[in-house]
């Protein structure tokens, strides 16, 4: 197991390098000279050249890349072009907000998705199954910003139960988490259902039954653990979507998170912040995938250790 | 004088085993490891053995469905492995195959008639105008009704589908038919129908069969000569009578004794082999059977036995065992 994890960690190196190259090229592929943007429309060529020199933009691209990687490895992303504050100072507080939002939403998705999926599968074709699947279809087809707006309209504005914006208190957290977590819950519910149904018809479930086990034991001990294997994969994929969805959710609920920060800074062409933000998201995504692989491995003994 | 139709020389089929950090080839599955045999025109040669012995791989290698690692395959004197893709495709007219699961090899969207006519079209054996007539003839030859020509494969039962598979193989006038577990999936009563059909067709069209199977009852019924394989090697090759009545290799003996006989009054001695067939990755050194053989000695662990014919064996009967003499004389016997 340790060997497996170490190997997977080593395999991350090329992946992260690739991510870095893409993030780095973003700045050089977008039209317009950053130095010009910082200096402003009316700046003289001298001022622009000065800024270029200060930022190292006059050096050859491979050298720039080398510096970028070196600095990124120590989490030094330079200073924001907009506020001149160190990027990490700007990023970290917002990163935690976004991470919180994502993790709570994920937990929401997993708990509700799996519970609904299991109920559906165990009582296939019952009214419970039909309604769960209907709700899931609904949750899946609804764009999450729309769901957010609707929730806000109903529960915050009409009923006044929750504050419409902000982040921090439990009442502020609930609506954004539902907004962001619903589609994931729907996907997980559907996956859990079909995976459970598939497993329930397997020979080893019949063996378990022939042994004289109770249905409950068969469902939770024998079926669920096998059914989770594909569900875990889906959960991993969901997390990527979650980070993207967080941007919209943050905008709807005016949450000061990383998504909002990145959107704002893209508009302002504040590349160091954008680059750092995207890189952080990519790294988180890659590590979540690693976690998924490890739990996958843990669940599925058939995957070869080597 | 028997005429050689197919000659296989030192055929090897290794499949790479990928592994390690970068997915390099770390080992090989030696599915078929240096086998030599020939098939005479008009005969049925069977290849038997348990799963993983390489019998199906041998059939696939002859058809070049997988490119053999090494060796020669001569069909009517011509080396099949030297042919390019197009020439090989033309050669397939002479070499047809029937699989275990005909359903998987029949296009579900084509009627039986279309399936047969397409085969004829590809090999251009019959002018287009006569194809349908020929298809009807074939359908009747294999014992189906000519009204069934416009039906789809799913409308047939397993046995009937196998008849369709046979008709398709016949449609191009092949010389050699490789039947890979062709009757294994069928119920006994249906299996008997198909076996009888295969024998009748052989007489009518002077066909040669390479019959790959694991059921020795079926093999005894249909074969002229038999090859017994174990872990990629031929352990014994003989005419039918010799193989069943005078088996020489301990594995053949064990295999024969392991089959239940449908006669409760016939008591027999059974040689129960211990353990499982070893993995074809890194097969045992020396004789591959030595890990399970009741007679194994030091030489078996180190030296690969050659196929040999001895005085007490009929001409053409050969077995690959170091101890044929001692086992035959009774000097070596199984303690029970």
């Amino acid at each position: 197991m340790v060997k497996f994890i170490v190997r997977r960690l080593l395999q991350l190196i090329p992946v992260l390098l690739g991510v870095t190259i893409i993030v780095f090229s973003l700045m050089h592929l977008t039209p317009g000279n950053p130095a010009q943007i910082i200096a402003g429309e009316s700046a003289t060529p001298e001022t622009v050249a000065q800024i270029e020199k200060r930022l190292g933009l006059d050096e050859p691209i491979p050298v720039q890349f080398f510096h970028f990687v070196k600095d990124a490895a120590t989490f030094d992303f330079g200073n924001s072009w907009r506020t001149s504050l160190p990027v990490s100072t700007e990023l970290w507080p917002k990163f935690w907000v976004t991470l919180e939002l994502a993790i709570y939403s994920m937990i929401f998705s997993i708990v509700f998705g799996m519970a609904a999926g299991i109920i559906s599968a165990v009582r296939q074709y019952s009214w419970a199954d039909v309604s769960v699947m209907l709700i899931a279809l609904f949750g899946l087809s609804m764009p999450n910003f729309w769901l957010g707006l609707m929730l806000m309209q109903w529960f915050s504005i009409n009923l006044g139960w929750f504050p419409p914006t902000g982040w921090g208190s439990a009442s502020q957290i609930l609506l954004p988490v539902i907004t962001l977590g619903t589609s994931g819950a729907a996907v997980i519910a559907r996956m859990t259902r079909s995976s459970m149904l598939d497993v329930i018809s397997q020979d080893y479930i019949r063996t378990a039954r022939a042994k004289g086990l109770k249905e409950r034991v068969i469902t939770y001990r024998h079926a669920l653990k096998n059914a989770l294997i594909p569900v875990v994969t889906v959960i991993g994929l969901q997390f990527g979507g979650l980070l993207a969805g967080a941007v919209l959710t943050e905008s709807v609920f005016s949450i000061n998170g990383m998504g909002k920060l990145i959107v704002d800074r893209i508009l302002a062409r504040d590349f160091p912040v954008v680059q750092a933000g995207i890189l952080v998201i990519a790294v988180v995504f890659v590590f979540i995938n690693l976690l998924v692989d490890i739990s996958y491995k843990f669940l599925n003994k058939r995957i070869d250790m080597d | 004088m028997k005429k050689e139709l197919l000659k296989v020389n030192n055929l090897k089929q290794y499949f790479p085993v990928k592994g390690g950090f970068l997915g390099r080839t770390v080992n090989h599955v030696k599915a078929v490891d240096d086998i030599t045999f020939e098939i005479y025109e008009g005969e049925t040669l069977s290849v038997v053995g348990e799963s993983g012995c390489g019998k199906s791989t041998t059939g696939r290698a002859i058809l070049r469905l997988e490119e053999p690692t090494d060796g020669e395959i001569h069909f009517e004197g011509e080396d099949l492995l030297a042919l390019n893709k197009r020439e090989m495709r033309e050669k397939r007219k002479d070499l047809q195959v029937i699989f275990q699961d005909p359903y998987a090899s029949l296009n579900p969207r084509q009627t039986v008639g279309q399936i047969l006519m397409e085969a004829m079209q590809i090999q251009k054996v019959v002018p287009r105008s006569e194809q349908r007539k020929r298809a009807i003839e074939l359908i009747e030859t294999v014992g189906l009704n000519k009204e069934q020509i416009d039906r789809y494969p799913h409308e047939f039962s397993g046995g009937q589908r196998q008849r369709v598979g046979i008709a398709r193989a016949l449609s191009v006038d092949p010389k050699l038919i490789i039947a890979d577990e062709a009757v294994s999936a069928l119920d006994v009563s249906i299996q008997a129908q198909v076996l009888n059909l295969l024998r009748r067709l052989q007489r009518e069209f002077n066909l040669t069969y390479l019959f790959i199977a694991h059921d020795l009852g079926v093999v005894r019924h249909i074969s002229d000569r038999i090859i017994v394989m174990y872990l990629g090697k031929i352990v014994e090759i003989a005419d039918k009578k010799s193989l069943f009545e005078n088996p020489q290799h301990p594995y053949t003996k064990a295999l024969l004794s392991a089959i239940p006989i449908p006669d409760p009054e016939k008591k027999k001695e059974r040689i129960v082999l211990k353990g499982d067939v070893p993995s074809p990755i890194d097969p045992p050194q020396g004789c591959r059977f030595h890990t399970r053989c009741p007679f194994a000695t030091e030489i078996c662990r180190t030296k690969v036995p050659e196929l040999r014919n001895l005085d007490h064996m009929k001409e053409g009967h050969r077995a690959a065992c170091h101890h044929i003499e001692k086992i035959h004389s009774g000097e070596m016997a199984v303690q029970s």
Partner: protein
Amino acid sequence: MKEEIILEVSDLRTSFFDEDFEIKAVDGVSFELPKGKTLGIVGESGSGKSITALSILRLIAKNGKVVGGEILFNGKDLTKLSEREIRDIRGNDISMIFQEPMTSLNPVYTIGKQIYEALKVHQGMDKKEGDKRVVELLELVGIPSPKQRMKQYPHELSGGMRQRVMIAMALACNPKLLIADEPTTALDVTIQAQILDLINDLQEELGMSVIMITHDLGVVAETCDYVAVMYGGQVVEYQEVKELFKNPKHPYTVGLLNSMPRHDVDVDELEPIKGNVPSVRNMPKGCRFAPRCPFATELCVTELPELDRKEDGSEVRCWIYSDRWDGDPEVSVRNEERTT
């Protein structure tokens, strides 16, 4: 001497419901199994032999149901038990092993844990005691180094080994009856010989009764004391094993024996049964075998014969042996001259 009967099945009917359509998978199965003996249930695919076995333990799929008949196990009708009561019998008094050892074990648990589960649920054994018994059981079924093996997962074992594990699991609570549903069909012949020997030895050692479900007449001849031949969801013949092979009565049994290529004797030409197995969705009205039977008469086509008990204890479902037979009175189903 009157033998003690451990299992008596009479007129069992099991149907599957597809929308409103009733598929009569088992439609009139009767047999009895004397204590300590082996009964073979033999038939081709679709004959209903596996559904019969699953019906005994009420393990059929959700859309299936036992719709008629009795299954008396030690005098108790299994069809009338509550879900709880039947659960107490499964894996305890009656155990079952299946055809596919490769898929019949749960891939995510060690084999030791899977065997222990039966011990825990029926005998309330704790882990320590259970582990000891698991090792004993693995030893009993001939698995080398059982202490290490019990910690392995199914994928680490060969097919033959997995079937041994299945047997160990089935034997965990000393069952009185073992139902083996095609236990060797998926195995190679040398491994089949090992497993059949094992079942025979264990039966002698433990005094179990066994139901052996198979399509292979060779397996029947080597392992069974009594045989029920099934066709189209019904038992068509029930006999003591030696009699069945020496003196088969039902034309279908005769047809099966004549179709079987044998490795121990030369047969010039096989005599297959003509035609195809009827579909469960479209069973003939009269005798199920009539469309394929060389002796069928008007009576056979229109009316279904009963499974009749003869004086010698054998049973056969065929008009030829009744007073109402309307064909050739001298007919012999075993006519060697018969050609097809």
